């Protein structure tokens, strides 16, 4: 498959996923109808819509719109972060959880749920709803910054040290999480459990707007990262020989991934598997060169997450499955099948 074709197919898949995410739900709004409502609203403003379109517009703009935008953002962030981590660690099994983001975010989330109760009622309701994601965001970011600090000596960040210290920090955060879970009441436990399984429910444009800059920051850096990550596949020394500022690359990759992943985890919970699988799917079809791999992974990741969310909404309607359950239940077997089928191409 040529790279241009891959970009086109990925963009097409994402378009389909966006349309599905907008139209499918308890109230079905067909894609043509959805497009018509959006078009009318753009032309006349929402106040100027005919009465028969008002309900559709409310669902599209206030519920499914932010949900779709958040899903695309989170999926793109996870896939891109996974691809960058795999390139940086030179290991196809790496994912952002290795640098402590997920465990740090989980610790901060459970800490807020269990210990934040005392102050939660002091916040205005609008802020109260954001307290959990904001806590998770800073928890995830703090864990990675701490990790980067531990693994950097004389201005050089050691990748092996990052990996091992990441395991240690992850275990420490898990211990703290376990302790807080032990202290938690049943209702707090339930809140935390559902948070860890992930959901795009409760998406608002405010959440989209808060997550977008951090994901955007990583996306903007992809051209710089792509060239560097290609060279790093040769090893750090050879990458330096061919003109890459490896230390700058590592810092940019680590911070970019941490910020984007923390934003994704904070707004949708710890959704597994997309970050690992999306880059793999892309690598299998167009090879490992990052210039195409990074953008196509982002598109595919967004499409995968939106598709999973549609399934999560519909499988047990009117209830919603946690989206992490869907990504794992569908993705893992598919991924295994791909690995077995394309074993030779993947591992040489």
């Amino acid at each position, binding site marked *: 498959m040529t790279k241009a074709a891959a970009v086109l197919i990925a963009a097409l898949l994402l378009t389909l996923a966006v349309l599905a995410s907008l139209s499918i739900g308890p109230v079905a709004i067909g894609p043509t109808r959805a497009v018509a409502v959006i078009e009318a609203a753009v032309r006349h403003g929402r106040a100027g819509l005919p009465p028969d379109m008002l309900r559709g517009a409310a669902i599209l703009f206030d519920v499914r719109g932010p949900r779709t935008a958040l899903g695309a953002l989170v999926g793109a962030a996870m896939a891109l972060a996974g691809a960058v981590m795999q*390139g940086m660690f*030179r*290991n*196809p099994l790496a994912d952002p959880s290795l640098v402590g983001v997920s465990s740090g975010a989980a610790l901060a989330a459970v800490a807020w749920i269990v210990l934040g109760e005392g102050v939660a009622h002091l916040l205005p309701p609008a802020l109260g709803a954001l307290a959990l994601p904001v806590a998770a965001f800073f928890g995830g970011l703090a864990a990675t910054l701490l990790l980067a600090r531990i693994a950097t000596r004389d201005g050089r960040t050691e990748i092996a040290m990052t990996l091992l210290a990441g395991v240690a920090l992850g275990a420490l955060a898990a211990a703290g999480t376990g302790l807080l879970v032990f202290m938690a009441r049943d209702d707090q436990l339930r809140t935390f459990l559902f948070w860890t399984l992930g959901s795009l429910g409760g998406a608002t444009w405010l959440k989209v707007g808060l997550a977008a800059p951090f994901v955007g920051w990583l996306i903007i850096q992809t051209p710089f990262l792509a*060239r560097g990550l*290609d*060279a*790093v*596949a*040769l*090893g750090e*020394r*050879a990458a*330096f*020989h*061919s*003109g*890459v*500022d*490896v230390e700058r690359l590592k810092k940019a990759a680590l911070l970019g991934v941490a910020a984007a992943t923390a934003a994704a985890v904070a707004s949708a919970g710890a959704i597994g598997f997309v970050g690992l699988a999306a880059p793999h799917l892309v*690598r299998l079809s167009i*090879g*490992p*060169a990052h210039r195409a791999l990074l953008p196509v992974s982002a598109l595919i990741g967004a499409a995968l997450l939106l598709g999973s969310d549609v399934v999560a909404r519909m499988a047990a309607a009117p209830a919603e499955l946690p989206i992490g359950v869907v990504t794992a239940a569908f993705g893992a077997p598919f991924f295994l099948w791909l690995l077995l089928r394309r074993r030779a*191409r*993947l*591992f*040489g």
Partner: protein
Amino acid sequence: MSALEATGVSVRLGGRTVVAEASLAIRPGRVTVLIGPNGAGKSSLLAALAGDLPPSEGEVALDGAPLSFLKPAELARRRAVLTQTVELAFPFTVDEVVRLGLPQGLARAEADRAVEEALAAVDLAGAGPRSSTAMSGGERQRAHLARVLAQLAAAPDARPRYLLLDEPTASLDLAHQLATLAIARRHADAGGGVLAVLHDVNLAAMAADELVAMKAGRIVAAGAPASVLTDDMVAAVYDVAARVGVAPGGPFLLPQTAKALRR
């Protein structure tokens, strides 16, 4: 005078001094070859000249400018390095591997030509679409040599460029060993400087304008091959008693005449 030059360079690794007070100049138009026993510090000295290992004492300068003042991208336009083992993390094609060396912002036609010429130079013409992970060790080594050549071939100006090769012939058959050394010679003839670490003293003596022998981190002899490769030097550096012969092309050493002095 332009040169890639180490002046009184010492390198410490893990608390041990692996290169001690080494001074060495790689000059345009000349092939300099480093020889010496395992652990003599050859690769570490090469790494210091490449800018990988900051010297604990002394200085490395590229045409007069200290290496530490140069950005990686600037350095890459003026010197290229082939290291002993390069393990690719992902199955890049040969073409992609060679392109990794090219500087950014090169015009497409120019890049294509540099890649094609580099592959032809290492006898891998037409191998571009093959997966580099499915190649033999020798082929892979040549693919990386092509990458290194492409990196320098694409440099825009006429300043001298330096080629640093760490055991470039290690996993090659005889024909490709000779071809690789011929590439080094051509680079020097075209006005570039070459430093190669070689294990085979015969290849080294044949390829070198200047032969440099190291032992225990120190440079113990340097000069024309005939003046460096002598019975006394072989005994002192390798702890081997041998009779160095002289062929029309320069000195040679037959392992059949050699005997280990002590171990």
